């Protein structure tokens, strides 16, 4: 218990979380502070490249153990299962329409890569090792949730009553291609493969760029995430009812529990379990929203974006990370 509390305090007083809080505070105080769009995209590219490469180099060094395939499979199953739970929870507890509930559900089945990055940084700081291929698991979990969520809307309704034609909802192979080949995933997976090919030599040669400054860059990026989350809350809070906000808190805990159990069942290391927990607990706010605007335009972005970015993301970052680490240490 005390260990958990110490973890929590260490997390809350880490530069990472404090820069996020600074961004949040600046947004709520309506400061004009902005991180230019191009810089934010550049930082995100850097983070994807670094985390992917490091994961690949680590796989090259430690070899692929038997659990790699199991982890990928577990990730895909979690990504497909969580939306079903989330959808039903929303239908039971909130008055949201089918499309809105399904759109939100898709976010929670998918993942937040920044939450994943924050967790890797936290456990690295604690000296906890983890499987390098968890990066690949993260990539694999992006998409299944979207397919399941669209199925939740269209199943049994013969494509009609949900209003496919009239309302614009659509489920197209083009959409899947766009999601699978979106820039972030391509850099993440590409850098992972390059890391696997070039191994530790490659890593050493570019470590002063992708390893040494990583944590500092993440701080700057989290400052921006805080700004965006804060501004999202200012603009979108009135769209969130109490049951919806509650969902944004308990759903990561449900998802995280599933991730924790799955990670333990397939025999991941403590760090690996913590990351699997984090992936399952986190909610997307980049790939899934974009896909939802195309596939379910009648679902309200002000609800799903605000919930994922303004409620669940800060919750995972502040409360979730120490919690997931503590439980992973217990179960491992």
């Amino acid at each position, binding site marked *: 218990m005390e260990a958990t509390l110490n973890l929590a305090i260490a997390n809350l007083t880490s530069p990472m979380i404090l820069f996020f809080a600074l961004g949040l505070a600046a947004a709520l105080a309506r400061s004009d502070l*902005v991180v230019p769009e191009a810089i934010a995209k550049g930082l995100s590219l850097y983070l994807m490249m670094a985390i992917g490469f490091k994961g690949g180099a680590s796989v090259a060094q430690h070899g692929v153990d038997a659990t790699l395939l199991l982890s990928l499979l577990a990730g895909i199953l979690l990504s497909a299962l969580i939306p079903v739970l989330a959808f039903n929870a929303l239908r039971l507890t909130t008055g949201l329409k089918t499309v809105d509930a399904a759109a939100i559900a898709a976010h929670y089945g998918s993942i937040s890569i920044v939450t994943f990055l924050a967790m890797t940084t936290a456990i690295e700081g604690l000296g906890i090792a983890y499987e390098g291929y968890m990066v690949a698991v993260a990539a694999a979990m992006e998409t299944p949730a979207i397919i399941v969520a669209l199925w939740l809307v269209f199943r049994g309704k013969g494509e009609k009553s949900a209003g496919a034609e009239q309302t614009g909802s659509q489920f197209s192979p083009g959409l899947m291609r766009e999601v699978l080949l979106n820039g972030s995933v391509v850099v993440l997976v590409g850098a992972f493969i390059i890391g696997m090919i070039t191994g530790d030599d490659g890593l050493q040669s570019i470590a002063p760029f992708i390893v040494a400054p990583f944590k500092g860059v993440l701080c700057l990026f989290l400052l921006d*995430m805080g700004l*965006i989350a804060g*501004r999202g809350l200012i*603009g979108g809070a009135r769209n969130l009812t109490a049951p919806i906000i509650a969902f944004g808190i308990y759903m990561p805990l449900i998802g995280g529990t599933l991730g924790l159990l799955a990670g333990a069942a397939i025999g991941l290391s403590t760090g690996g379990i913590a990351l699997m927990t984090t992936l399952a607990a986190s909610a997307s706010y*980049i790939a899934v929203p*974009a896909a939802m605007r195309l596939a379910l335009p009648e679902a309200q972005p002000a609800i799903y974006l605000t919930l994922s970015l303004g409620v669940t993301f800060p919750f995972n970052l502040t409360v979730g990370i120490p919690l997931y680490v503590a439980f992973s240490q217990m179960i491992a």
Partner: protein
Amino acid sequence: MKTFTKKRIDIMVEAPLLNRLIDLLERQEVGGYTVVPAIAGKGTSGTWHRDGQVGRVGAVVQIFCIVDESRVDAILKPIFEMVAKQIGIVTVSDVEVIRPENF
């Protein structure tokens, strides 16, 4: 200088839809189009700002397309159908061009 009257169609649309809109314009075989950035805005769907986004959702881009008057209706119909259910607006105005053949 002799000029020829054409129509300029201006479409503001949420960023995730841009590629589909461009595909639509290509299928309509318009002579050309230009995508123009926007920084911030407000409409019936609320307020947005470019520097306050992760990802593309929420941002709006502009695309305009100069076409012959005779083709306006044929082009406008599918555009309007696509944009109507999304975040965005469409306007049409008069412009004059010098070389009429490209539009």
